[in-house]
């Protein structure tokens, strides 16, 4: 006898309905394809439950298990595929009809976090209450519960993030591509310095104009860099860019200004290259320190994310991130340490005579790096505060000297004068930037050791 493949929708309703139709022979039509008369609207809620129960109780084991064996959903039965079980032969009775389902949906069952997930997945893969009844279950839910109980959970921890396998050449190429925007400030600065050098014989107005244009180009490039990557737009307002502008401006002209003020000046506006206090090497070195800084910040963010995925607890994560932060800062420190003397060499100037000049550039670079790192991880307020504090110290130093010109206020300028006498004019920015950078780094250690500072942002880069 051919096994029944067409079910009767609402068998009980059909039986109670008026005059069930005569059933044709099994050869001409599938077994029980019944059609009821237009069924009266029923209360629809309770029927499947009771029907499923009936099916579970009333199904003979023979055909039910045959269905379970041959017709377990999951693979569409292809036409022409031989029917499981020869016609007329006694169907094999598997001892465990759930086993076939289990092996077919093993991945779903192993991944599931609770039985309802298995039930939803099974339904979506075409398992119905009929299949569940074949497995001697009341409905899909109880079937899912059995599957959930029987299939071992996939508790293996997720593998640590594996970077997508890329060839060396591809990695170099992508690194180069992402480095291009960060090289723009350096390029603009180099072009400006070159233009100024070639315009050495021109009138001071021309030199000033070239310098201003170059400064604008570098500023635009810096702005472009700041808009990229993690924490973009985190600067919040104008105080951040203003502080950065002041700090860089002081690095270029501050020493000249302080010297002039100390000596009763300034008598004239600075030219693009004040004698004896050429800011070009510092500017060039700072601009070329942008790509290393971006790389270090990116490296830190990536390693921190990896630590995020690998750490079992917040304390462990903090313990992993702190050395990372120190390493990132130390790595970045190498950049100005190399770039500042190199820029002087390239520009053909004498090497740093005093330790203070090198320290001024280096501390400013570290300050900017720390501020960027903090801002990128959601602490823009702290970053701006650190930058503004450094600005204030520098501005106060200059103002103190000016105030000292008032009668009776000599004492105000005494610390500045003493420092400049001892260490040269660079002592002021060194003190300001170093203190601010240290403060920011001290702030960054607990702040960046928090897990919430590393919430994945939309832009994964930098």
């Amino acid at each position: 006898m051919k096994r029944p493949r067409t079910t009767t929708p609402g068998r009980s309703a059909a039986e109670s309905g008026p005059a069930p139709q005569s059933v044709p022979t099994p050869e001409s039509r599938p077994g029980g394809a019944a059609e009821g008369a237009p069924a009266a609207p029923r209360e629809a809620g309770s029927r499947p439950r009771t029907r499923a129960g009936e099916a579970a109780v009333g199904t003979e084991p023979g055909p039910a298990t045959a269905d379970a064996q041959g017709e377990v959903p999951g693979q569409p039965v292809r036409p022409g595929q031989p029917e499981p079980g020869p016609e007329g032969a006694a169907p094999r009775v598997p001892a465990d009809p759930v086993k076939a389902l289990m092996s077919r949906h093993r991945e779903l069952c192993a991944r599931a976090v609770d039985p309802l997930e298995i039930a939803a997945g099974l339904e979506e893969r075409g398992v119905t209450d009929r299949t569940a009844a074949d497995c001697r279950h009341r409905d899909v839910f109880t079937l899912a519960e059995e599957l959930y109980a029987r299939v071992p959970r996939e508790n293996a921890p997720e593998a640590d993030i594996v970077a997508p396998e890329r060839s060396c050449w591809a990695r170099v190429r992508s690194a180069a591509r992402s480095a291009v925007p960060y090289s723009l400030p350096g390029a603009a600065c180099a072009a400006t310095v070159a233009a100024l050098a070639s315009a050495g014989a021109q009138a001071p107005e021309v030199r000033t104009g070239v310098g201003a244009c170059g400064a604008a180009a570098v500023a635009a490039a810096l702005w472009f860099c700041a808009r990229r990557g993690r924490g973009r737009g985190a600067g919040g307002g104008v105080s951040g860019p203003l502080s950065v502008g002041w700090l860089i401006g002081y690095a270029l002209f501050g020493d000249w200004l302080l010297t002039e003020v100390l000596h009763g000046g300034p008598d004239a506006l600075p030219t693009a290259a004040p004698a004896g206090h050429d800011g070009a090497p510092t500017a060039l070195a700072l601009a070329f320190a942008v790509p290393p800084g971006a790389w270090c910040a990116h490296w830190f963010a990536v390693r921190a994310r990896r630590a995020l995925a690998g750490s079992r607890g917040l304390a462990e994560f903090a313990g992993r991130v702190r050395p990372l932060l120190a390493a990132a800062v130390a790595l970045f420190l190498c950049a100005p340490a190399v770039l500042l003397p190199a820029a002087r060499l390239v520009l053909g100037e004498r090497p740093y005579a005093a330790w203070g000049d090198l320290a001024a550039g280096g501390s400013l670079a570290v300050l900017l790096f720390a501020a960027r790192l903090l801002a990128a991880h959601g602490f823009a307020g702290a970053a701006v505060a650190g930058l503004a504090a450094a600005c204030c110290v520098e501005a106060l130093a200059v103002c103190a000297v000016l105030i000292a010109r008032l009668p009776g206020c000599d004492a105000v300028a005494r610390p500045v004068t003493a420092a400049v006498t001892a260490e040269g004019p660079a002592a002021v920015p060194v003190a300001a930037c170093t203190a601010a950078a240290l403060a920011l780094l001290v702030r960054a250690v607990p702040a960046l050791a928090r897990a919430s500072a590393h919430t994945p942002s939309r832009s994964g880069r930098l």
Partner: protein
Amino acid sequence: MAAAVAGASAAASRGAPTGARGGAPRGASGGAPGGDTESRGGLGGSEDPGGSAWLADRFASGLYGLAELARDAGGLPRALRSEQAVRLLEAACRAPGASNRARGARVGDLLATTALLERALRPLSLDWYEEAGGDGGRSGGRGLAGVDLCHATAGGPAALPGLLAKRFFGTPLLVTEHAVWLRGRYLAYCDHLDRHDHACGSGGPSPAVRSLRAAFHGLLAAEVYAAAALITCADAHARRWQERGGADRARVRVVHPGLGAPFALGAPLSLDAPLGLDAPLGLDAASVADVGEGGADDDGRTLLWTGLIAPAKDLVGLLHAFALVRAAEPAARLRLVGAVAPERGAVAYLERCRALAAGLFPEKGTVSFEMAEGPGPAHPADAYAQGSVAVLSSVAEGFPFSLAEAMFHGRATVSTDVGAVREVIGGTGLVVPPRDPHALAESCVELLRAPERRARLGAAARARAQELFTAERNTAAFHGIYLEIVAHCPVRGASVDTDGQPLPFARPAEAHVPGHWSAAPPSSGRAARFRQWLPGGGPAPRTRPATAAAPAGHVPGWARGAADGGGDAAGAPGRRLAAEALSAPARRPEEDA
């Protein structure tokens, strides 16, 4: 400091406001919000003492504690993303009784979970909480206080405003789920669909994240069901899921979706379609009336499939079945009319089916794919008029709209036994097991060869559809449900005249209609008038959000919020809130007497 972890369960031990920060209202952009809610999670409730009731209670108090925090201090999203929330979640995951998967959560998993919570709970931060105005909040109040009945047309986060209204103002809540939200969430886990908030980029969410998320979703669904005065669903299949999710059997009603709203075949499809809903062909009252008794005018050789093309429709199986049909009936042809479902892989699936069809049936015109953007039928009803037998080959279905449409058009149907198919077809068509091309083919051949039987089945199907699946019936059902709910709810803010006597009819229901209600088109009958308050003209399954129907200038603040911020959490759009207001006389029948 406020801490907010509802994570899989929040519970609140609400302490006093702490120090200077406590109670100071701060904006969302302010510093760490001062608050007084400390929520601690207890994960894996099955092992907890006291069982699920205890856990649900802890979850509910935590949830409403967070709502109070959002109301009093603001800054809830910030608090949920703060380090302290992560710390609390970690403590909850390590607490005794937590499930093994939660115990294995890495820090990245904790972050992903707090992000999920923050997004899911964003509706708590909107300006719902405004108290009623001087006249009882009935005129223009921005908050939920002026609402008489909340009707959430989806579960989960979409029902959060309803929960708040219930909690803070005692407003009754009606929940309608056409596709059960919890089931949709589970399916999304299965398919890795919502991986975009996963911390670690590659691969799906980790087991820990999925476990925490499932616990949260399950508890939220249970809380919604518990708070709802009545829960309606589209079919018994959904009802079973709702009961599994914690809905009280006595409060679940099946309200079949009504067809009859003018859906155009070529209308742009959007992700707004709830899971499991199929895009019906155009069907309006006129076309339903025009269709003949069915079966008489078909050509006796055309099989018709309609719907949204997606892998779950098993068109491959249908094509194989059709090959068998062709072997028996060489003149048979197959028309597939519909559109591509807005889901991943659907387009590729269509291409695969086309290729398969071209391979199986080299003769031109045997199988025709008529997609919405392609040359479709001249009139949607033509597709049904020319088809002899409507076929549904899905392996998974929610409420089968295409089947109901075929029934409206008086077509005999052959469908697979999935979802609510049995319930819809009710004996007026043939039902075969899913993924069984042989059975499908045999049934189709059988019907193709028996025009008389086809006509009889079609007429029966048409009668059944007109009895059960009309928009009028749906509207009337909701009308009755609304009246029933408000009849059981205490009257708030009743109007009184100068002598202190109750004043019936003081606030007509039309006062709540966005825009100028007197300019509304005239409509006849109470049901029709009722329908005009509803978003999109009635609680038909694919109504637009309430705010979409209102003129832009008249959308109240809370409704704007619901449209903007509320609908993001799960990536399952289609959740809507229709806040319904019923007239005063309806709420006080005893005064009319």
